[in-house]
């Protein structure tokens, strides 16, 4: 086991010990933190199993060539369009988009398309956009989308090209 792994285990155990003691001694800040933890955990438990199952199905069923054709080096501008459309239909925040993006990359998508996908999944998920427009108005949402989508694509291209030039290797997800 690496040193960083041991550090993580110690940190996580200390945290849970702190929460347990807080509940036992009725220490309010600790109790409140524990409640925050549990309410967010419930949110994640609702989303994550589905997200990872879909990733599993994706890895089994979708051929590498298909991903390469639509998201790879030769996909040109279509790759970005696909990335934005795919991101728009997906549910779940940044932490769901990250493993999906990783999976796409392993199947041969190019880096700038991956970053476009991550950025777009943050800003233009359809269910969320509808929700936003109903609280803040359609004008607000339209301005936000029209300004941010081009910016996301441009900055993804810049970041992707920079990394390709510097022999970047993606991690294993651990």
């Amino acid at each position, binding site marked *: 086991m690496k040193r960083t792994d041991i550090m993580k285990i110690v940190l996580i155990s200390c945290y849970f010990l702190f929460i347990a003691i807080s509940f036992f001694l009725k220490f309010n800040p600790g109790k409140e933190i524990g409640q925050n933890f549990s309410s967010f955990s419930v949110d994640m438990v*609702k989303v994550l199993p589905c997200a990872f*199952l879909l990733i599993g199905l994706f890895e089994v069923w979708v051929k590498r060539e298909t991903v390469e054709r639509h998201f790879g080096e030769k996909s040109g501008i279509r790759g970005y369009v696909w990335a934005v459309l795919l991101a728009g239909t997906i549910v779940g925040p940044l932490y769901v988009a990250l493993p999906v993006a990783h999976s796409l990359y392993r199947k041969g998508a190019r880096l700038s398309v991956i970053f476009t996908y*991550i950025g777009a999944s943050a800003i233009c998920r359809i269910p969320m956009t509808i929700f936003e427009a109903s609280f803040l108005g359609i004008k607000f949402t339209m301005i936000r989308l029209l300004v941010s989508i081009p910016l996301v694509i441009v900055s993804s291209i810049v970041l992707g090209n920079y990394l390709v030039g510097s022999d970047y290797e993606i991690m294993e997800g651990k």
Partner: protein
Amino acid sequence: MYYLHIVTLLALVISLLVNRKKTLKAARIALKRFLAILPAFLIMLILVSVVLFLLPDKLITQYLGSENILTGVLCGSLFGSITLMPGFIAFPLCGILLKKGVLYMVLSAFTTTLMMVGVLSFPIEKAYFGTKVTILRNSLSFLTALVVAVMTGVFFGEIF
């Protein structure tokens, strides 16, 4: 949220009908991937629970409503970057803030960074993309959010 569950269920059923073996393999891949990233998720949850305790809604409301546009936008983008809240909490909160007179551009800075910049999801992003890329991507997203906020301000006639 139900939308995701329906899609997953449909995909699973279709996959099972077409090929059981492949579906089982998919489930195994799903489990393996999930367990590999689980520690990073736990650390993120821990960070979220502590930060939300230190930065309650009331404090956020107070700072976003600041009279000074610059302070408002900066606070909005900082809060948006370091907090992590689901859209179904964030947008109603913004709706309330709007009625209280908070500027559109401040709300834009807040929601855009909330969605694009993830200081608390750093452990997860780092596990997949490494430290350098995570920092670069988040910094670029932060700048993007500031541009979006300024443009929102221009279109709503809040500046210039």
